[in-house]
């Protein structure tokens, strides 16, 4: 069973790593998932989990993933906003699979997935 003692050991291990990561900064990508009642009911949680899992698997340290409230277009939820290279991209009607593809093609390779963007729907 996991105990808080293990967490202490983990902290010691992490201390040495933390400095290397905070270097990123400037070219950071910010990803926000709408997590109000509308988003949650439409399935935003699995989408958020997929994004976190994919970012973790690919060791994307310059990506910050967070949640936000109602973005205002409830019928297009789950909505994911990506802020990258000074631009905002709004992905709509997302699923965990689409989210993984978006990470691979847009966040990693720099090509927005046009067919998932709001303008295309």
């Amino acid at each position, binding site marked *: 069973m*996991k105990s808080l003692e*293990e967490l*202490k050991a983990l902290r010691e291990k992490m201390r040495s790593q933390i400095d290397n990561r905070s270097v990123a900064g400037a070219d950071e990508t910010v990803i926000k998932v709408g997590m*109000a*009642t509308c988003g949650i*009911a439409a399935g935003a949680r699995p989408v958020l*989990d997929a994004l976190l899992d994919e970012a973790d698997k690919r060791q994307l340290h310059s990506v910050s993933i967070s949640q936000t*409230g109602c973005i205002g277009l409830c019928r297009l939820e789950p909505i994911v906003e990506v802020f990258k290279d000074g631009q905002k991209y709004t992905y709509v009607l997302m699923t965990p699979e689409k989210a993984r593809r978006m990470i691979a093609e847009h966040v990693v390779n720099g090509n927005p997935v046009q067919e998932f963007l709001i303008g295309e729907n």
Partner: protein
Amino acid sequence: MRELALNILDIAENSLAAGAKLVTLSLWADFASDTMRIRIDDDGCGMDEETLQKVTDPFTTSRKTRSVGMGLPLFKYSAESTGGCFSISSEKGKGTSVCAEYRIGHIDRMPLGDLGGVVLQMIAMNPQTDFLVTVECDGKKGVLDTREIKEILGEIPLDMPEVRAFLKDYIRENLVSIYGGRL
């Protein structure tokens, strides 16, 4: 909503929007009396008597994007449709408490769902807020207090992948195992 855990996430988001420093979530279940209670307390901005009267009306909301607010009405419905009950109390400047009680065996009771995932998401996505989560089922009890965890971690943030991985296991073994898939 297809899982009570998602309702919990939604209600906890209200607490965060109210600027809560500490959100207390407790799940209590007793199979002998076929009763389950979900309770969320916060020390956020609270609301006045007039708002409190209207808050379970779906056409009342604090958000500006549209005039419909389904969070509390859906949570209330989820409890009352099982023959349980719902209550909310609040004091301006002090905080808000929401409590829903369910008949566990009622055919209309939604499954609890991925409570562990919801708890992990709440605590990792809102590092500025503290959470006290307790799960009690048939006399067994599990607790997660982010104040304790932050004290141990010091300057290391809660959303680091390694910390998330630890928390995920910790939640599964210390909170979810208490009711172990029976809810």
